[in-house]
């Protein structure tokens, strides 16, 4: 017989179900975890306590499968103000400014209800950033869906895009970029990753810590309803028939209230009225209060009967686990409460005292005077068992890596380009970003449709470049190289605008980690990310893990999305992605080895996702990044576009077709010396890393070539931009010439997604 620890008696809430084995299983807690809980409490937990453990010990909150690996990420650097562990990471900028940024997934909610799932995903990430005292200045989104020929995928895509758009639009934060890819592995389990970037004065940074015994906890914002109960553990299980039955939990977003909450929160922080503040995200009141207490090394006592609810008769269990949106938890000194309430009232919100900071370290919940939960706080947050899953690459994956195409391609080297450009993964995402406000706040220097978005920091001349990237095909085929490639591509996109990469946030979307082949993908991809970040000096400042992305048809492709920010020292140095004017000279930077393994070309022309993806030379990437920044600073670049999916041919076509709303089109004449005598397919569509396609004024070519040589970056002047007409590519070794009418390419590229989306049904 064990003894109940002092101060941890708790009683079941009248009418609540007794805790049986079945109830424990329903809460996604295994036998080992349950035994830990019983040992920790010295008694059977109440249902409310079980619910609290279930939420905090879910993968989403506890990182129980992933912590040891996440610890291997580089997190330090002179620019780091706040690394992982807070609501968002923070990096230092010039002139006393700092940038707070974070990415998060909302995959499962979006699979069930795409519009609300995606909308609340954006709402949550905005709150993560403004609780730090930062004003959100940009949103990005990374989406993965099954192929658009399935009606359900079209329905999901359309709902997700509307949801992402409406929420950001309504709150008044520009959506500056993102990515969308389509692959069969995401049918039934779409991915919605949302990133938010905010600005603050470094001295105003607010951390989510409760301290000061006797301080008051206030619930601020929306009332608590029965929506989203158990969202955190829902996010940590595979999607199945059962998920359908979880539909009543759908959370509904209210961006209008979010906007008020944003203004009120920033005002409270600016006036110094709070000790700590955190949004109620996954696991709602439970995680916000428990994590704030643990960070501050204190206990808390909450009285759930004081929490404003939407419906009468909510139980403490429901109140603690609700994921109703647009709520914050504020910690403040008691004498500040009236001032806090006055600020909230001005923004037509309420802030209600619901608890206090205590000195006994216990996480205690009372309801109308009855203690319904009392758990040692630190062990609640940190005591979840850590797992070290087995990692083993599957033989299928090994075989796929050495696969080569059998049979002829669907088209020859000439016909391949239009096919690639019309492939929905490569095609223009204008249909998507046209639904996102990208100019509100009037600081947008480069909007969506290029390599990275750029916003100016208000009142200064410098800007932030932002991007999200991941090529899941590479990660599927070689998780380590794929992880490196995701960071390298993000950095290349940032560098193409003229900016210097500063740091990353990551959203690690994988399948069930208990399967060795999945955990292998996870471990190796993280190793690749860590190596790339170390090489580039871009620390990981935070992120999010989303496991169990599986549907009855299997796991998703491993998708470690990288969100990156970079600094553009002067926005007048910005470099657009598209060609600017006839006469400009085209230079290809980097080495072309004609690598077709894992390429879009094989996928689209041979229907083969196979082969080894291009190995990423981190040193070459770093040199290219430095060169691009240096050339931009000297105003040598009229445009710069990285070579990624579809190789140099797709990059050329994208640059020549022009910006999404360019009024006139251009053309180009290009000649490749091709000394290595690559096949036309390998030369045009090979996907080697560390390359970018740039243009410069005719008089500046030699200066650019000299600068490239100084930076150790191979450079080849390959042609010039022409007036409207055809994109002409000549291969000097074989005397082959390819010509593509630009207007036709443009039509295929811009029309591909809208054409597929005309029919929107469920």
């Amino acid at each position, binding site marked *: 017989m064990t003894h109940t620890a002092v101060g941890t008696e708790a009683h079941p809430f009248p009418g609540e179900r007794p805790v049986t084995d079945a109830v424990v299983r329903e809460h996604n807690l295994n036998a080992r975890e349950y035994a830990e809980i019983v040992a920790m409490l010295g008694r059977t937990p109440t249902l409310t306590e079980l619910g609290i453990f279930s939420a905090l010990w879910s993968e989403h909150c506890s990182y129980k499968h992933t912590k040891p690996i996440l610890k291997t990420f580089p997190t330090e650097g002179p620019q780091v103000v706040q690394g992982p562990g807070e609501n968002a990471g923070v990096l230092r900028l010039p002139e006393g400014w700092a940038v707070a940024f974070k990415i998060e997934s909302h995959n499962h909610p979006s699979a*069930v*209800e795409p519009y*609300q799932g995606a909308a609340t995903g954006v709402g949550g990430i905005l709150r993560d950033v403004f609780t730090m005292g930062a004003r959100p200045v940009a949103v990005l989104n990374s989406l993965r869906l099954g192929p658009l020929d399935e009606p359900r995928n079209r329905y999901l895509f359309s709902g997700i895009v509307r949801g992402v758009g409406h929420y950001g639009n309504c709150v008044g934060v520009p959506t500056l970029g993102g990515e969308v890819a389509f692959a069969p592995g995401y049918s039934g389990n779409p991915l919605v990753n949302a990133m938010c970037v905010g600005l603050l004065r470094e001295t105003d940074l607010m951390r989510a810590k409760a301290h000061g015994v006797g301080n008051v906890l206030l619930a601020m914002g*929306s009332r608590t*309803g*029965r*929506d989203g109960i158990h969202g955190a553990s829902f996010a940590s299980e595979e999607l199945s028939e059962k998920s359908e039955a979880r*539909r*009543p939990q*759908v*959370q*509904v977003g*209210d961006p*209008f*209230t979010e906007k008020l909450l944003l203004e009120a929160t920033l005002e409270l922080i600016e006036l110094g009225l709070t000790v700590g503040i955190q949004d109620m995200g996954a696991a709602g009141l439970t995680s916000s209060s428990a994590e704030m207490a643990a960070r501050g090394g204190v206990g808390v006592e909450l009285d759930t009967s004081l929490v404003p609810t*939407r*419906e009468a008769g909510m139980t403490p269990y429901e109140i603690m686990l609700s994921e*109703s*949106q647009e709520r914050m938890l504020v910690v403040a000194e008691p004498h500040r409460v009236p001032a806090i309430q006055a600020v909230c009232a001005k923004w037509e919100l309420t802030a209600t005292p619901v608890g206090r900071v205590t000195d006994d370290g216990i996480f205690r919940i009372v309801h109308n005077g009855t203690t319904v939960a009392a758990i040692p706080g630190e062990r609640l947050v940190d005591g979840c068992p850590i797992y070290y899953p087995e990692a083993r690459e599957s033989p299928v994956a090994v075989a796929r890596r050495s696969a080569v195409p059998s049979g002829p391609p669907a088209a020859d080297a000439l016909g391949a380009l239009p096919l690639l450009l019309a492939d929905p993964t490569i095609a223009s995402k204008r249909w998507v970003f046209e639904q996102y406000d990208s100019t509100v706040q009037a600081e947008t220097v480069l909007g969506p449709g290029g390599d990275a978005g750029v916003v100016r920091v208000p009142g200064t001349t410098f800007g932030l470049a932002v991007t999200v990237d991941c090529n899941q095909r590479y990660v599927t085929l070689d998780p380590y190289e794929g992880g490196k490639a995701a960071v390298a591509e993000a950095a290349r996109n940032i560098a193409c605008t003229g900016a210097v990469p500063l740091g990353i946030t990551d959203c690690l979307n994988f399948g069930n980690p208990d399967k060795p082949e999945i955990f292998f993908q996870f471990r190796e991809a993280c190793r690749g990310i860590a190596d790339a970040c170390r090489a580039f000096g871009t620390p990981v400042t935070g992120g999010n893990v989303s496991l169990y992305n599986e549907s009855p048809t299997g796991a998703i492709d491993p998708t470690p999305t990288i969100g990156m920010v970079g600094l553009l020292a002067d926005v007048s140095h910005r470099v657009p992605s598209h060609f600017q004017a006839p006469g400009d000279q085209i230079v290809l930077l980097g080495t072309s080895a004609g690598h077709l393994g894992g390429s879009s070309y094989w996928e689209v022309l041979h229907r083969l996702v196979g082969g080894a993806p291009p190995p990423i030379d981190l040193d070459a990437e770093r040199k290219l990044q430095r060169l691009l920044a240096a050339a931009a600073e000297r105003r040598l670049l009229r445009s710069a576009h990285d070579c990624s999916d579809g190789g140099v041919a797709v990059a050329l076509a994208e640059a020549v077709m022009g910006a999404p709303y360019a009024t006139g089109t251009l053309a180009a004449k290009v000649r490749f010396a091709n000394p290595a005598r690559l096949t036309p397919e390998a030369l045009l569509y090979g996907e080697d890393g560390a390359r970018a396609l740039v243009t410069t004024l005719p008089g500046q070519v030699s200066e650019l070539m000299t600068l490239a040589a100084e930076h150790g970056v191979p450079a080849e002047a390959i042609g010039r931009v022409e007036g409207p007409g055809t994109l002409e590519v000549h291969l000097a070794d074989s005397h082959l010439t390819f010509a593509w009418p630009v207007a036709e390419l443009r039509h295929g590229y811009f029309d591909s997604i809208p054409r597929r989306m005309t029919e929107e*049904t*469920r």
Partner: protein
Amino acid sequence: MTWRVRVRILPRTGLLDPEGQAVEQALAALRFTGASNVHVGKAIALDVAAPNADEARAKARAMCEQLLANPVTEDFDIDVEPAGSA
């Protein structure tokens, strides 16, 4: 025969209805007393060809389930009357 079908689609009870709340508050601000429990949804009116009212209703129900209403977040009800009678 043609039937005039009217579908009313409202947010499922228990789900947050921010639009309903906003309208409720606006009504109060306009000094309309005694208005409560306000919910805002969609109204759809259409003509449906069917041999009888029951079949028109069944057709409308199928339309709601497959297209008009979102089964995850909305409930609907259907009115049917002979076209031209309203």
